[in-house]
Every structure is written in structure tokens, then in C-alpha cells.
């Protein structure tokens, strides 16, 4: 199989990740629940992983690194901590349902800082304008899961700091390839999955906290157990129940893999593959790829449409030829409306550190064969 759906999950994992998951299942029990060796081993794993994440993402203390089940979980905590029912949030035009659905559930006013795709100047101006009316929070993806557009998050964070409005960063597509420094950004929260660019298993995620947060769930934390309110300190306040220890072991190994390989090298590799894919697609007269004029604005994600063909049909034809891509709206109807592709959606190709130029060529051959049998 040629796997080109890493924006959903990096399917190929480093061997160290698989080994860490297995080792955790063999040697670790519940962290924070006992003084015996297997509980201690789990506790040490959690602390190592929090410390590593804090160092990687510019968080001042490991206590501010919260384990979640996904970026969606983290975004829900962040949004529901900052935006009251009926409140107002400013969002980028490229947000995922993980942002827009919680806001909808809160009956919040969602002010979209509308700007054309891959246009940084217009994007910053749109946020500037939206911020004049104030908001409870700004929620902005670091990179679009549909088009791979890397937004000017530093500039947007600067606007938020000057306006005194908390910023929530959705780093779902950027964690592991773009630098993220919570302290420099001054962000209230950043949420990321463990199973994409950090190469951990599904069911893992991180919420980096720079502001007070409210739990989505209550339950046991192994601390302050006499109190019936959740602890008022992190990370326990947001981590009720037993942790996903094997998942976190895999996440730690994934984080170490990224740090060793370096996000810069991984991004360079992914951009080379995406450029190759875009060039190949551009040579097909009935195909429209959505690419940034400036390479630095696009990560390892590329959408395209085919004249007269539904994206699902194209994806199905590719699947029959052993190529895995994702078609449709990618859980991001707002992004598709903003990009002008809402009517049909797109076919999305996305890569990781493990895909190769030969696989991109194989995908292009399969697409040509599917479109012109």
C-alpha cells in the first residue's frame, strides 16, 4: 500500500514506538496509584514524557503538560474553559470541526477572520479587524488539515497579546514539523494529537496549558482524594481516570524520534514530496492542485480536485490501485467553504517522514491510470 493519509494518522511508526508500547504493557500498571515497581515505572514514564514535551514546546513546567486522548479532547477543554455559553470567539477560516462544533454547542458567536487561501497579509489583517470587537478567545489552527496552509501564527499571537485576548492554538497538523514555543507565543493553550506528526499511537494527545482550565470529566486522580471537587492544580485537574500508559509510552518514543530526526528535516522531506506531487498533478490537464506560491506556507498536505469526478470516486479508484488518500470535507466544512471547495470537497494527499519519492510517483501513475484507463 502507498499510504498518503498521514494528516489523519501517521500509519507508519518508528520501530521504537512499537517497542515502547509493548514494553509498557509488559512492565507498567497504573501511575499515581501505588508505591510498587510497576506503578513507579508508569509514573516515571509520564513525568519523562511531560518533561520532554515541555522542553520541546517551550512550556515552563511539566505540570502544564496534560495528557489527552486527542487534539479534539484538548481543544474541547481549552474552548470550554475560555468561551462561556453565548460568548464570542474569533477563528481562522481554516478550522476543523474539533473547533467549530464545541463553539456551536456553546451557542457562541463564531467570528471568522476571513482571508484568501495562502495569503498571510490578508489573514493578519482579518484577525486585526475581528479583534477590534473583542472576544473571549481566538482559536487558530497552526496549519490547515485540508490545504496544508501554515498560518502566520506568530503574528496572530502578537495581535492577541496586544489585545489581551487568550489564544488557543490547534497544532494538529504542525506539531512535529513546525516549531511551537508556548512561552514565546504567550498562548493560553495549544492542543495536539499524539498520533500524527509526533508518531505516537492513536488515542494520545497533549494539551499545553498557559491558562487556568476546567475539567471535562471528574474522577479519580490519585491525589487530594478526600475532596469531592477536582484538584485545583495541573495536571491532575484535567486527568481523571487511569492514563493510557502504553499510548503515552509510544508518544514518548515518537517525540524522541522527532527530536532526533529534527522537525526541520522532516518538514524539508515532506515539502519535497508534496512539491513532487503538485508538479505531477499540474501536468494532468483535468486536475487542479491547491498549492501555495511560497513553499514556506505549505506543509506536507495537498488537496486537489478532478474535473467532472467526485473526490470519493477518485479516492476509491486509487484505493483499488493500492493508494490510500482521503476524500471529502475532511471534517472541516468551514475550511472547504473558505477555500471554495465545499460543494464537492477535495482529494487530500498527506505525507510523513516515512513516505518516499517513489511512492509519490506510484500515486501519480495510479491516478493517471484511474482517470485515463
Amino acid at each position, binding site marked *: 500500500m502507498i499510504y498518503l493519509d498521514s494528516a489523519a494518522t501517521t500509519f507508519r511508526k518508528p520501530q521504537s514506538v512499537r517497542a515502547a508500547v509493548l514494553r509498557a504493557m509488559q512492565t507498567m500498571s497504573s*501511575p*499515581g496509584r*501505588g*508505591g510498587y515497581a510497576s506503578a*513507579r515505572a508508569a*509514573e*516515571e514514564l*509520564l*513525568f519523562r514524557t*511531560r*518533561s520532554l514535551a515541555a522542553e520541546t514546546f517551550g512550556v515552563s*513546567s*511539566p*505540570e502544564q503538560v496534560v495528557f489527552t486522548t486527542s487534539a479534539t479532547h484538548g481543544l474541547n477543554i481549552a474552548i470550554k474553559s475560555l468561551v462561556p455559553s453565548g460568548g464570542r470567539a474569533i477563528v481562522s477560516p481554516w478550522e476543523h470541526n474539533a473547533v467549530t462544533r464545541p463553539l456551536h454547542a456553546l451557542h457562541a458567536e463564531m467570528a471568522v477572520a476571513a482571508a484568501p487561501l495562502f495569503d498571510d497579509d490578508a489573514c493578519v489583517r482579518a484577525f486585526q479587524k475581528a479583534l477590534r470587537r473583542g472576544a473571549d478567545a481566538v482559536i487558530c489552527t497552526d496549519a490547515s488539515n485540508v490545504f496544508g496552509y501554515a498560518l502566520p501564527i506568530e503574528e496572530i499571537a502578537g495581535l492577541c497579546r496586544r489585545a489581551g485576548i487568550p489564544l488557543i492554538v490547534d497544532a494538529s497538523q504542525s506539531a512535529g514539523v513546525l516549531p511551537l514555543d508556548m512561552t514565546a507565543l504567550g498562548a493560553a493553550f495549544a492542543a495536539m494529537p499524539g498520533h500524527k506528526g509526533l508518531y505516537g499511537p492513536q488515542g494520545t494527545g497533549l494539551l499545553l496549558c498557559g491558562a487556568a482550565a476546567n475539567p471535562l470529566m471528574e474522577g479519580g*486522580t*490519585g*491525589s*487530594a*482524594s*478526600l*475532596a469531592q471537587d477536582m*484538584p485545583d*492544580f495541573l*495536571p*491532575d485537574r484535567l486527568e481523571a481516570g487511569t492514563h493510557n500508559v502504553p499510548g503515552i509510552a509510544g508518544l514518548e518514543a515518537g517525540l524522541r524520534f522527532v527530536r532526533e530526526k529534527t522537525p526541520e528535516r522532516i518538514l524539508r522531506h515532506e515539502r519535497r514530496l508534496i512539491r513532487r506531487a503538485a508538479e505531477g498533478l499540474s501536468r494532468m490537464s483535468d486536475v487542479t492542485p491547491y498549492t501555495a506560491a511560497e513553499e514556506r506556507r505549505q506543509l506536507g498536505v495537498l488537496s486537489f480536485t478532478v474535473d467532472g469526478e467526485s473526490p470519493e470516486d477518485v479516492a476509491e479508484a486509487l484505493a483499488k490501485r493500492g493508494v490510500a488518500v482521503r476524500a471529502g470535507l475532511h471534517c472541516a466544512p468551514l475550511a472547504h467553504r473558505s477555500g471554495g471547495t465545499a460543494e464537492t470537497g477535495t482529494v487530500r494527499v498527506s505525507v510523513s517522514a516515512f513516505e518516499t519519492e517513489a511512492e509519490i510517483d506510484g500515486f501519480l501513475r495510479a491516478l493517471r491510470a484511474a482517470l485515463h484507463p
Partner: protein
Amino acid sequence: MDYYLLTARSITHVQQMAKALEHTGVNAKIRRVGTGVTKSGCGYTLQVSERQYPRCAERLRSAGIRPVRVLHVTGSGTQEVPL
């Protein structure tokens, strides 16, 4: 043997204290403790010998990591003391 118990709000907090003491020559031991020590239910402390406590306290102060409480445990009883 007399010693000090530095109580923590969470396992992560006690681990942070222990981490700050690494490479300082302080031999600190993480211990699970109950309500009798924490007053709030299950919890964690760092146990440090009386001899090593001054170095431990200095290091934690300089790292900006404060325990919830410091208990001095001696043969004649337990007394709360400032860091």
C-alpha cells in the same frame, strides 16, 4: 533516624522536586503517604535526611519549586517547618 518530609500536591509535583535535586548529592526518596500526612487524602512526599535537608531546601528555593508543606519527623514527633 530523623528526617524531613516535603509534601507535594501531586505525583508530578513530587517528581519535579526530585528532578530538581538530581546531581546535587541529595538522596531524596519519593514516598506515597496518606491523609495523616497530607490532610487531603492520598498523596506523595519527598523524604530527605536531616543532614541533607539544608542543601535540598536551598536547591528547591533556587529552582522556584515549593513543597506544599515541610514536616520535620523526629523521635519525639512531627512538626511543620518553613522551607
